[in-house]
Structures are given as C-alpha cells and as structure tokens.
C-alpha cells in the first residue's frame, strides 16, 4: 500500500442475501453461484440492499433481460454500482449512453470490431500468446493469471489503439482503482479517471501533430450528429475501450484455464478434438461470464413484481442470468459441447459488448496456443479471484505436466 493511504473501511458481513446483498462480500467473491441459486428460490427474483445508497440485483435470466431491454426506466448513465454517486457521471460512451445518442456513438466503434477485422488481428494475438509462453514454459509452472491471461488483452488493445504495450501496467492499475478500490473510495476512483483522461488527451495531442493509422486517430476524427465529435466524448470512448477491453478478457481467459486445469477430462478432450473449441469457448463464457454492468433507476418501476425506486442502482448480473436453470438445462454444469447456448455474457439489447468479437478471438487463440504447447497442466496452489464488478482469477498458480 502506498504511503499515506488508509486501509479500506471494514464492511459488515452480509446477514441476509435477499435484503442486504454485497458483491464485495468474501462469500460472493469466492462462490457467487450458490448465493444466486438460493436467491432464485424466493418469489421475487430481485434481491435488494441498502448498501451502495440502495441497489438491486436480479438473479434470473428473464429479470436481467427485462431490465436490459428497458432503457426508459433504467439508464446507463452510471454503469458501476458504487458507494456514492459521483456527479455529474463521467461519460464513457457508448456504454454510458442512452437512446437516442447511444446508436450514433456506438456506430463509430462497431466497424473496427467486426469478425473480419478481428481475423486480421488474430495472427498478432497468436504471436503475443507464444511470446508469453516462451517466457515461462521452461519453468514448469506459472501464474496463468499474472504471466499469461493478463497480458493478452492489454497487448491486443494497445495494438489496436496504437499505444505502447509498456503502458499496460498503468492501464491495469487504473482499472483496479476504478472497478475495485474506487467503488468504496471516491478519491481513488476520481484520480484514476483523471489520470486516464490526461493520458488519452496527450495521445490525442500527439496525433494532431502526427496522425497515425490506429483506433485513437479514427475515433478522434469521427463524426457525431453531422459534426466532428467533441473531444470530451472521444476521450471517453477511448477510456471505455481501455477499461472494458482488459480485465474482462483477462478474467475470461483465466477462468477458462482454471476450469481446464481442474477438469482434466475436458482439457484432454479439447487437445484431442480441437473442433470442440467454439462450443467450449461459448460455454466458458456462459458459465464463467466475468462481467456485470449497472443501471440507474430513473423512474419508479417494478420488475417481476419487485418494486424499484428512482435513484437506486441495479447490478445487472449477466453471470447470474447465465446460471439460471429455467433458461439453461444443467445450468451449473460446464458442458464444453453444449449445442444450444444463448448466453448473455456480452449483455443483451442495445448495449451488447462492442468488443465481443475481439474477446472471443483472444480467448480462442489464448486457449489454443496454450493447449498446443502445454497440453497437460493442473492447479498448483490457491486461486484468488477479483472482487466486485468483474470476476476472474487474479492469481492462478499452474504446474505443467
């Protein structure tokens, strides 16, 4: 901990998950699945809490879907459930946008993330993965979260944005400060946000002098409502790509490797039959979906008979939706050949993750290259999971052979 920093305030343990839930509670961090299952047995599929200035969490697929589709009662202007409300909310469009501005802003970002564009990037990501594996394969073991999964999305997004890969550690620190530490500490969150904006603004300035062929230049020169996009929105968009494109996929790659390390039958099956890779990746996305989003209730309403008040937040748990047995048979089993899988890992409705094709490609390539070079491996120590908004392994010790 840095000098002068105070330790985070202790939060009382959760007494009742239906009326006092907390996604930062250690029980949720270690095994949220059992908590959601318990909550689904109640009449109301939405749990509430007075923490976070009042918040709800839907735990069924139908309730998550209903809220995702309802942009009238649920605004995206705040997308993280935090202890306080920072006003005005900082824009990171299009994730923080509502209709009608959402669509034109999202259309700026969609073309560079199509499957064809990702196919062009794929050989570079394959090279990144092999470069990382070269670094630890002789050791016979590694921390797959810290030495492998963590670096793949950072380097890929750095390539797309046109920023140095050496800045990756800085991006990861900012994300940790915004999505984990900053949820309970405004100062940490605001400082990380302004450092990111300064960093991105400096990238803009450099490109105004010497334009480059990358995503930052593209976004800077895009049009919004028939005019050049205002700098504040363009900076917010790049901030979004940095925040959303890193620890999410880091988590998904890590969770997939964690599953394969503890499930040798699935690991061996994928090694023998790589044609299972597409269904396996979709199943890892379903079962270990890392990302929750949030909405702010902007008009009193109810979902599945559960009342929600204006000003409260909603933790939109796509991971819980993906484990709902009413939607997915054997929802708590991981079936790498699951044929029908309408999972919601990338969200539902207009806010579908803009980087979903990138995430999928990175996961596929990361697992393929790992299995080619390290076909036998198992857990060799305790896995430590991140807390709160995005869930994935942050320490994942793995032994080879």
């Amino acid at each position, binding site marked *: 901990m840095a000098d002068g920093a105070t330790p985070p305030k202790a939060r009382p343990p959760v007494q009742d998950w239906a009326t006092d839930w907390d996604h930062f509670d250690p029980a949720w961090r270690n095994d949220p699945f059992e908590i959601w299952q318990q909550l689904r047995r109640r009449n109301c599929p939405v749990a509430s809490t007075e923490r976070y200035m009042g918040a709800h969490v839907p735990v069924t697929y139908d309730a998550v879907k209903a809220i995702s589709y309802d942009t009238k009662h649920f605004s995206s202007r705040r997308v993280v459930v935090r202890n306080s409300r920072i006003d005005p909310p900082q824009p990171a469009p299009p994730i923080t946008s509502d209709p009608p501005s959402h669509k034109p802003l999202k259309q700026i970002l969609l073309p560079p993330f199509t499957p064809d564009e990702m196919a062009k990037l794929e050989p570079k990501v394959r090279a990144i993965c092999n470069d990382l594996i070269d670094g630890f394969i002789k050791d016979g073991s590694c921390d797959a979260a810290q030495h492998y999964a963590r670096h793949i999305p950072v380097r890929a997004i750095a390539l797309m944005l046109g920023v140095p890969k050496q800045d990756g550690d800085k991006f990861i620190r900012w994300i940790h400060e915004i999505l984990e530490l900053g949820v309970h500490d405004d100062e940490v969150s605001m400082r990380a946000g302004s450092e990111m904006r300064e960093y991105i603004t400096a990238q803009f300035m450099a490109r105004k002098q010497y334009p480059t062929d990358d995503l930052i230049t593209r976004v800077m020169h895009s049009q919004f409502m028939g005019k050049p996009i205002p700098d504040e929105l363009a900076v917010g968009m790049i901030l979004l790509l940095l925040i959303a494109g890193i620890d999410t996929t880091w988590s998904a790659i890590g969770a997939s490797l964690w599953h394969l390390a503890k499930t040798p039958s699935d690991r061996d099956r994928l090694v023998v039959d790589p044609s299972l890779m597409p269904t396996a990746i979709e199943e890892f996305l379903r079962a270990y979906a890392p990302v929750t989003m949030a909405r702010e209730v902007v008009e009193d309403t109810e979902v599945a008979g559960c009342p929600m008040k204006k000003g409260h937040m909603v933790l939109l748990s796509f991971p819980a939706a993906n484990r709902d047995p009413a939607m997915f048979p054997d929802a708590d089993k991981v079936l790498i050949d699951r044929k029908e899988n309408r999972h919601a890992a990338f969200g539902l409705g207009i806010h*579908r993750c803009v980087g979903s094709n990138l995430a999928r490609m990175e996961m596929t390539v990361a697992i393929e290259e790992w299995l080619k070079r390290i076909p036998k491996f198992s857990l060799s120590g305790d896995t430590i999971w991140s807390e709160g908004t995005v869930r994935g392994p942050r320490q994942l010790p793995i032994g080879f052979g």
Partner: protein
Amino acid sequence: MSTPKRVRLRIDADKCQGHNRCKAILPEMIELDAYGNAQPKGDGIVPEALLEKAYLAKSNCPEFAVEIIEE
C-alpha cells in the same frame, strides 16, 4: 413420407444486436453489414445440407432474432 418443406432463414433486423453467433455457426448463409448486423445471404432458402446448422444458428441467438420459417 411427408412432403419436403422449403425452409427459409430470416433475421429480425430490429432484434439483431450484432452478437455474430449466427455468423460463426452458419457463415455460408449469413452476411454482416459494416456495423456487424446480420442478414441472410440471397433469398435465405436453407439447403438440406445446412439445415442442422441453421437451427443451431437460431437456437444460439441471444436476442431471439434468428427465425426459421417452414414454408
């Protein structure tokens, strides 16, 4: 023997959010616009050999945008 039916693939453009699951499963019949939204190629008539994949494209769409119409 039942009469062979003609099967047509349709995508509801209002529901499609560009998840691209159908494109991954059934690339032979799906094309994407510049924003990644899906449409069937040509008239959308599904050849016998692609029937199974077409039904999978339908049953994996997170937005329930893919429809199979038996004519």
